[in-house]
């Protein structure tokens, strides 16, 4: 475990160096966006990967975080740093609120529906509470955070800020999933009944997992709002939620590093495909499908494997895809 997380650290340092050296503002922009997405994806890894509870409403929490910062800054004049604990509290509260109806539900479709419609309710609430949130017109002019006289207004300084947040979130998540709490979470994923039978209150821990995921989404939102400068409800509807889940899966939903990797890959990928716009989105969709089909454990499962091992893995995968065995579906 030690060597692996130091390996990640090296990767982050390298990435930061590359960004620092490069003069391309666009790449810096995308890298910052990736780091923000990665924080939200970490939440999905905790709730869906470790705890096994599907969450299709993550971007609603990003939205709540972003709107909390925007409203506190623009309407009441609080600084960015004061908004952080408030936004974390608010998103945590909504996370608990979403967790409660999800407690009894077993099985994908029901949970998928509850989390997705919960996200849609948040979206509609933001749309309708016009006096408070600006409704469909959104909110403009969110200020960059400051420390003393220094403002994080340059792209690069903001990028470093996001990376610092990402690293902190990563290590906090690492601590959580490696602790006994993390064991309880994986236990819920493997067999909730078994865990209840040895006297663990799984309801309590499930709600906690939902709250942790929500707070991570909220932190991503806090960083997102000043970075983009303009937020509107559409940015936090269900399609970005599904994109965040795809990031987690493409990277590898059972590992925190996988989630971060997936966030970077899927944020950069559409921009790398420089074709005309329509064909680009088609190609992007097909590539995502191919990655989902060929690497069900995510891109991170390629980490530390030799070329021949990778080839073996892919060929067994392709054989499995082509066999189409008739299996019991439920």
């Amino acid at each position, binding site marked *: 475990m030690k060597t692996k997380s130091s390996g990640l650290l090296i990767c982050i340092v390298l990435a930061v160096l590359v960004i620092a050296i490069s003069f391309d503002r666009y790449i810096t922009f995308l890298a910052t966006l990736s780091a923000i997405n990665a924080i939200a994806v970490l939440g999905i890894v905790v709730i*869906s990967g470790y705890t096994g509870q*599907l969450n299709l409403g993550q971007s609603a929490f990003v939205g709540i975080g972003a709107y909390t910062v925007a409203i506190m800054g623009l309407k009441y004049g609080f600084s960015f740093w004061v908004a952080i604990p408030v936004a974390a509290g608010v998103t945590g509260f909504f996370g608990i609120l979403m967790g*409660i*109806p999800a407690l*009894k*539900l*077993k099985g*994908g*479709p*029901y949970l*998928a*529906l*509850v989390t*997705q*419609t*919960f996200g*849609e*309710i948040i979206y*509609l*609430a933001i*749309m*309708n509470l016009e006096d408070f949130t600006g409704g469909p017109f959104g909110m403009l002019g969110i200020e960059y955070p400051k420390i003393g006289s220094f403002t994080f207004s340059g792209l690069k300084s903001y990028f470093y800020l996001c990376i610092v947040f990402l690293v902190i979130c990563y290590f906090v998540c690492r601590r959580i999933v490696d602790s006994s709490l993390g064991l309880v979470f994986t236990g819920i994923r493997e067999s909730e009944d078994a865990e209840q039978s040895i006297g663990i209150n799984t309801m309590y821990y499930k709600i906690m997992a939902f709250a942790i995921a929500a707070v991570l989404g909220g932190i991503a939102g806090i960083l997102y709002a000043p970075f983009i400068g303009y937020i509107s409800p559409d940015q936090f509807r*269900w399609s970005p939620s*599904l994109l965040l*889940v*795809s990031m987690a*899966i493409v990277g590898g939903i059972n590992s925190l590093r996988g989630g971060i990797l997936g966030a970077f890959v899927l944020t950069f990928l559409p921009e790398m495909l420089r074709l005309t716009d*329509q064909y680009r*989105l*088609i190609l992007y*969709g*097909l590539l*995502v*499908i191919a990655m*989902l*089909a060929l690497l*069900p454990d995510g891109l991170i499962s390629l980490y530390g494997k030799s070329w021949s091992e990778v080839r073996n893995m892919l060929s067994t995968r392709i054989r*499995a*895809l*082509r*066999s*189409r*065995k*008739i*299996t*019991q*579906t*439920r």
Partner: protein
Amino acid sequence: MNLIYFVQQSFNGLTTGIIYGLIALGFSMVYQSLGCLNFSHTVSVMIGALLSYTFIVGFSLHVGISFLLIVVLLCIYGWAVNHFFFRYFLNMSKLIFMLVSISLAGVLQQVALIFWGPEARAVPNMLGSGTIQFMGALIPVQNLVLFGVSLLTLFALLLFFNRTKFGLSMRIASEDPEAASLMGVNVEKTRSATFAITAVLGGIAGFLVAPLYGVTLNLGQSLALKMFVAAVVGGIGFLPGALGAGLLVGLLESLSSAYISSGWRDVIIFAAGIGVLAVRPMGIFRKAVTKH
């Protein structure tokens, strides 16, 4: 006067409700036979609506002929999407199947964008004009026809599943695929048929809503979440439940926008959906099932 308003709104609600029911039925049917959520299902609604525009406005074909053409083409579409795509993904985890179907929906929507372009289109009212007076309320003939066509479709489906040999073999294959294949049922064929039938149901729904909502590329997406609510609240995989819950969603939608607020209408529907699941985790119409 108040009662008349209520009757009118209820009937409007039932009309949209039966459309939600038709779409939810297809979604639920795929879940019943494969155990997977097919989020690309609403693409067939979009295709049905786009084709009805092309046939009726573009080629100025007769309404009945265009309807039949849409049924045939969507049957082919449903078969093809399973044959060339979904059957390779059935052994994967449910989550991956779901994300794959979402990605496929995105791809197909872009393909449709290339063929049809982004603009919204209006389809003329081809299902009959005028109104009928019922208990003082004025009900458009169009809505009655829409309701009737939906009911006929459902009746045909009922006959197919209960009276034909292939329909029965589809039911047994969805109940227990291994046993069915031992009994000589071609399970792959029944799965293809499931996709074809659900695509046709979506296409018919698209054909019917085209004059009501107009034809846009987002048509399927905007119906998706409500149809999802209907399918799950009705107890996913339980077909009469999907239809019943679809009607309830439509009714709730039109009554809450008439009496409470049209802005908060969808919030009420979704909150009601979550509330129902919190109380009855398997849906309203189904008893809890214990698995061993």
